[in-house]
Every structure is written in C-alpha cells, then in structure tokens.
C-alpha cells in the first residue's frame, strides 16, 4: 500500500521553488486568518480561488489552499489559548485548559505544546494518508445517518460531563445550546423556527457569532467586573517555551490525539470537533491527575490540538480518494480541482498521480513550515500579553465586532454577539460552564438531522440505531458512559457525606 516511489516523486514536485514559495504564503496567510477572529479558512480560500486558478499548475494552487487550511488550524489555537476565543469549532476544547494555562502564566508552554502537537499530528496524518487512505475512506462511507446520530449523542454526553462540574448545570447549558441551534431553518422540512418575525433570524445563527460572543465578549465583561478581580491573570509570565517536563508529559497525549483525530476526522461534517472531544475525554480518563483538567492540564491542550490537526489531514482523504469534500475548506479545494480539469476520486491517483503525491508531500512540508514559523511566534505572542489589559480589552472588542461583521455583512450579527456576550458574562458569574453550550450548538443540528433522516430510512422504527453494528456499538458506549458517570457521582457524594 505504501507507494514510496510516488511519495518521493511528490517531494520532488513539492520542493520546487515556486511550490515552496506558495506553501509559505499559504501557511502565513492561514495563520493570520486563524488568529483574526471572524474570517475563516474557507472564506479566505474562496477569496483566493480566482488567483489560484490563474497559476499554471493545479498542484501549486492546491498547495496554496491547503497551506491556508492548516495555517488557520495553528492560528486558531493561538486565540483559543490567549483570548479564549475559538477560531473554529475544533478549537473550542483547547479553550478550556489552554486559556487556564495562559492565566497561570503558562501561555508559552501551552502555545508551544499546541504547535508541537499539531506538527506531530500532521506528520502522522500524512503517513496515515499514504498508507491506509482508500480502505479507511470506504469505511467512512458506511457511516450513515444512524451512525452520525449515535456519534453526536456520544459527543454531546462527552461535552456535558467532561467540561464542567455539576451535571445538572452542564445539561442545562447543553439544552440551551441545542435550542440555540434550532433557531432558523429546520434542516429537514425547511420550516422556520423561533424567528419571531425577525428576518435575520430565519437563517441559523453563525458559529463565529456565538463563539466570539460567549467566549470572547463574555470574558472581557467578566474581566472588567472588579469584584471578580481575584481570579484574574497573574502578571508573572513563566517560561516562554514548554519545558522538557511539559513535553514528556504531553508526549503520549499527542500520539493518542493524532490517532483519534485521524480516524474520526475522516467522517465528513463535524469530524474535527468530535475528534477533539474524544481526545479530551481519553486524556482525562488516562491521566493520573484528572482533577487538573479544567484548571490548566497540559495534556488537555496537547491531546485535542493534535486531534484537530490530524483530523484536518484526514479530511483530505474522502476528498482525494472518493471525491467527497468533508468541510467547507475541502469543498473549495474540490471546486478548484474541478475547474482545473482534475476530477478528485479514485482515478486521481491513477490519472494524476503527480497531483496526489505533490499535495501529500506539500502537506508534510506545510507542517514543518508552520512549526518553524510558530515556535518563534510563541515568544512574540507572549510579549503581547504584557500589554496592559486596559488597552487590550477594547482592541479585542473591536476585532471581534468587525470580525463578526465581515462574516455576514450584518449589523444584526453584532447585536447577537453582544447579547451572547452578556449571557456568557452572567453565566460565568453564576458558575455555569459555557463549553457544553457551544459544543451542543455545533453538534445539535447534525444530531437532529441525522435522527430524522434515520427515522425516515427505517420507516419510523427506532430500532435502527441499535440493529446497525456501528451505531449500536456507539450507543452502547454512550449508555455505559452515562451509567459510569452516574455511579461514580454517587460514589463521590457518599464519600463526601462520609467525610463530613
């Protein structure tokens, strides 16, 4: 399966000066885009599509676009750690421990571990791509609506239990998140829900608006609240880079995260978010100090960051081998390939092997470049933290406001973001955890759509979720997970009661 000759040929193509240059440009642009709130990689790729189409070689344009895609992943983790603003859904989990580490003066370690973890994941991802791409892609096709439903249910349970303290509050937030996701068009029948006559609400609320509002604006308001001042940033900034001990601690998390991310990331639509959630769960369970999670555990950054980067690599698999794009960015790359006259799919390898291997090799190079770019940048970001918060706060506010406007060109979005910010601030004050809300908001529409599709397929019978092997297995895991948490919760309470 491992076509060494092909890969070598690919490197030959990827290392040409033109391709190297555009790889660098893509990586730089992508990082910038990932850091700037609002603009996402898909939108940037769309902006540059006409430019890339004028480049003679299709390989070059794909290299540019994938560079942007990866760069955005790296950049997105930067804002998650420094500002608690997730660049995209897959970075939400990084916000949890990453931001806590930053507050404790360990921003450098967090950023460094995120960059290194992403590099490890990207490398392993490329290896995986060359070795097991086609059979894994076939397996991904077997995931139909029932499987997606079970998977998102599991993901929701993971999000609710693992990211907060009180299950009741967690479930409340998750339910609110699910309801927020219902605003707009019903995914199946197209009926308008909860718009209350406001035309801007007739289309679903954008993730960026909600994420930046809840996490970004909410955090700013919370920090301004002087009564909560006790919990704010220490001014001491620790090591700028991760120590050897940090690296040793996160090594296994990176490897595990990479594998998890690679496997789950193949699933079109939502793979990266689920991957980061599962990785977080696995790390928490396998850690010797699970109580650190949520307060700044380095594995809680290393694992999910590796997972979402590995998922980014493997999201190319359905595109290149089956011709099915898994997310908005790969959809744009799909469009570019088609216009160049190259049809992605099983014949891509046979008819345009040089394109396939060129792209794969450049992914590897892109990862190296991003690592080389980002590690020194860590020092720069950490210096940025020295800017007094008094100045930073309005800047961040402006960035998020303009960013959200640039997504939908709508002033209404800014109002929604502000409202979310107020809600997020109040929730934090009253000790509600926002992670489950945001994750439920992302997973909810997928869950509902899959549920109703599955029921249509089964002509109304609910047994379909349990009789199909993959779905049944996932449901089983979900049930076990709930039971385990209920039991350990009761055990904890009994222990507390006994101690009193």
């Amino acid at each position, binding site marked *: 399966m491992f076509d060494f000759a092909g890969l070598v040929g690919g490197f030959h193509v990827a290392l040409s000066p033109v391709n190297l240059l555009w790889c660098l440009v893509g990586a730089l642009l992508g990082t910038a885009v990932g850091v*700037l709130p609002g*603009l996402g990689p898909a939108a940037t790729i769309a*902006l540059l599509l006409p430019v890339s189409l004028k480049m003679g070689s299709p390989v070059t344009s794909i290299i540019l676009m994938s560079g942007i895609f990866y760069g955005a992943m790296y950049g997105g983790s930067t804002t998650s750690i420094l500002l608690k603003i997730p660049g995209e859904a897959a970075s939400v989990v990084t916000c949890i421990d990453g931001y806590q580490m930053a507050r404790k003066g360990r921003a450098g370690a967090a950023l460094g571990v995120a960059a290194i973890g992403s590099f490890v994941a990207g490398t392993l991802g490329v290896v995986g791509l060359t070795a097991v791409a086609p059979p894994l892609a076939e397996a991904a096709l077997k995931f139909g609506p029932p499987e997606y439903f079970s998977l998102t249910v599991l993901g929701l349970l993971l999000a609710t239990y693992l990211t907060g*303290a*009180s299950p*009741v*509050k967690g*479930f*409340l937030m998750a*339910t*609110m998140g*699910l*309801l927020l996701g*219902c605003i707009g068009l*019903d995914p*199946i*029948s197209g*009926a308008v*829900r*909860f718009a209350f006559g406001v035309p801007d609400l007739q289309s679903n609320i954008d993730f960026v608006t909600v994420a930046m509002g809840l996490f970004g604006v909410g955090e*700013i*308001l*919370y920090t*301004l*609240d*002087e*009564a*909560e001042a006790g919990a704010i940033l220490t001014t001491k900034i620790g090591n700028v880079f991760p120590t050897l001990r940090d690296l040793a601690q996160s090594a296994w998390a990176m490897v595990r995260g990479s594998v998890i991310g690679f496997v789950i990331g193949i699933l079109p639509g939502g793979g990266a978010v689920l991957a980061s959630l599962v990785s977080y769960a696995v790390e928490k369970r396998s850690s010797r100090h699970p109580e650190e999670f949520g307060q700044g555990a380095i594995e809680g950054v290393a694992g999910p960051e590796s997972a979402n980067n590995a998922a980014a690599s493997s999201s190319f698999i359905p595109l290149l081998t089956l011709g099915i794009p898994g997310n908005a960015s790969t959809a744009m790359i799909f469009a570019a390939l088609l216009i160049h006259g190259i049809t992605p799919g099983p014949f891509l390898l046979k008819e345009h092997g040089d394109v396939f291997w060129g792209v794969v090799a450049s992914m590897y190079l892109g990862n190296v470049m991003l690592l080389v770019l980002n590690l020194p940048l860590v020092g720069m970001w950490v210096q940025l933290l020295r800017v007094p918060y*008094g*100045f930073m*706060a*309005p*800047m961040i*506010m*402006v*960035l998020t*406001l*303009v960013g959200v*406007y*640039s997504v939908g*060109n709508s*002033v209404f979005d*800014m*109002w929604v973001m*502000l409202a979310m*910010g*107020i809600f997020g*601030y109040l929730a934090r*004050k*009253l*000790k*509600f955890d926002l992670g489950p809300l945001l994750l439920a908001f992302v997973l909810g529409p997928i869950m*509902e759509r899959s*549920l*109703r599709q599955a*029921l*249509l397929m089964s002509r*109304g019978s609910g047994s379909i979720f349990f009789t199909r092997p993959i779905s049944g297995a996932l449901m089983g895991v979900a049930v076990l997970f709930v039971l385990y948490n209920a039991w350990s919760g009761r055990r904890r309470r009994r222990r507390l009661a006994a101690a009193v």
Partner: protein
Amino acid sequence: MRSWQRLCAVFFLLVAAVVLQQSIFVLRLFDHGQPGSGLMPFGLGVALAALSAVLFFQNRAKDEQRVPFWQPRAWLQPLVAVAITAVFIVVFDDVGPFTSVAVLVAGWLWLVARKRFVVAAVTGVLTATAVYVVFARLLMTPFPRGILF
C-alpha cells in the same frame, strides 16, 4: 447563592415555556407519522423545564458562595462597556467603520479604563486606521460608507 440559583431556574423555566408554546402551537410535532419541526424543540423544552425544577430545588453545599453582584464595583464597568458597544453598533451603519471604531476605542479607554482623554483619542484613531487598512483594504470587506471612510 441559593436565591440566585433559583432565579436562574425561573429564567430557564420561562424559556422552556416559550419553547413549548412555539413547538406545540406554531410548529408541527408530527408530520405524517414522522417527527416534525416541533418535535425536537418540544423534547428540549420538556428537558429544560425538568432541569430547571431540579436546579430550583437543588441544595449543593459546594455552591453556597456569595455572588458579588450588587456592589457597583461589580456591574458598573461591564455595563459601561456594554453601553459603549451598543452605541457603536447603532451608529455603525451610519458613520462607517473608521469613525465608529475610533469612538468605541476612545470612549472605552476614557470611560472604562480611565485613561487620559488624549491617550484615549490617539489610540482610538490609530486603532481605527489599523482596522481600516487590514479589513477594508487588504481583506476587501464591504463596509457601509461612513462620514470619513
């Protein structure tokens, strides 16, 4: 804290009520035997109501802390920040990105962060320029036409 928690529970209960009303009377619960657009919201509304009830009656020792809310030190600065932002959003379409950003940053620095007026004004203009250059020129974001730019 208990009273705040109960207040939250009431809030969620109200939301649940609205959701349930919409899903039963406005949306369809079932559509020819299949789940309709109202079924999922209905289920969520029921879940929300149930969870609010649990929250209302819950008595967790760990959460018995005072929530500092009614001291002006707590809510004053966030409120001013929200007000300034609201002003920004209201005038954005009319005065354009440059002026509104400058006003937001300057106003914030002056009123919330309590910097000197000159410092606030200069920073405001600088930030507005940077934003204009990056978003309007480099990224070609379509902005509304404003007073200055």
